[in-house]
């Protein structure tokens, strides 16, 4: 299994002097530092807050894409549908279908929702790899 130092080196190798290098390292540090029970649902806003410097939205998104990708997979991207204070987790297959058809099937009522993009949000969880690194690092 890869270790923390190896991941940091990989991040630096891939991003060099770009702002995403620091963003990725801040997110990695957050995942390792915060107790696992507090990382079950990480909002986009929470990720933004833990970054030590002000960042462009696109830089943060690219860092998220990288950390949830194949090479440095420490973050899982999840989706949730929020309507009238009710929150429903959505599997990726539902998001794919909704993008293809332009309509989301309401997780409870089964009704078709046209404006699902306004009510569907990303959130994040530590990946299995992040959890293993955290355990071995403890």
């Amino acid at each position, binding site marked *: 299994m890869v270790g923390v130092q190896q991941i940091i080196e990989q991040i630096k190798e891939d991003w060099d002097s770009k702002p995403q290098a620091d963003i990725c390292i801040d997110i990695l540090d957050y995942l390792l530092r915060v107790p696992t029970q507090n990382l079950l649902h990480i909002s986009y*806003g929470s990720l933004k807050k833990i970054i030590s410097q002000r960042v462009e939205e696109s830089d943060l998104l*690219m860092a998220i894409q990288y950390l949830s*990708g194949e090479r440095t997979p420490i973050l899982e991207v999840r989706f949730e549908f929020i309507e009238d204070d009710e929150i429903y987790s959505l599997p990726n297959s539902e998001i794919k279908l909704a993008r293809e058809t332009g309509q989301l099937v309401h997780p409870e009522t089964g009704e078709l929702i046209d404006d699902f993009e306004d*009510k569907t949000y990303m959130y994040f969880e530590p990946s299995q790899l992040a959890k293993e690194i955290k355990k071995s690092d403890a």
Partner: protein
Amino acid sequence: MPEENFSLRDLRMMGKVDPIINRFLDRILVEKYDEFIETLYQDFDSIITLIQANAELRQNDSEDRLTIDIKNQLNCMGYAASHEEKHGGHTDLLVKKCNYIWIGEAKIHRDYEYLWKGFLQLSTRYSTGDIDQMNGGMIIYIFNQDTRSVMETWQNRLKENYPSCDIRACERRPLAFFSSHIHEKSGNPFLIRHMPVILYFKPKDRI
């Protein structure tokens, strides 16, 4: 929207001005092999566009330098890309995602025999043509003028050297094309995208 959340609409709006962000969800949601290939080729086109936009800075770049830059950009997009990874030999570019593999052979265009050698390396040495790697690519760095003519000649040479090879146009990028032939190892059709990178740079405004 709740202030600290980020909706799919926010993502789509950002994607309208940033082609890399535009395919954020496509990359996250890749499950099937065809989705992997489609997303990868769109990402290749974005990367190639960026390289071509600064051709003046690339005039002394080697094959390896150019390929390593492509590899780095793919890694930043969430792929696991490598250069010189051992896979039946040292591949120029190996890209992995969701247990799928794509292998690319990168060549600076010197002559068509050199491209043919690259085609053979890709088809008969590095790839297996199995179900997880039914596609591959030729990345052709072209420092000569008239890329269209180079690609047309290369297409004709390919047909001469490999008469049973099928050629079809690439709709998204007309300078590129696809070839398909039966892979010797797997017996499956093996589809290769031939992608030029335009690097000719001889401005005439200051002569």
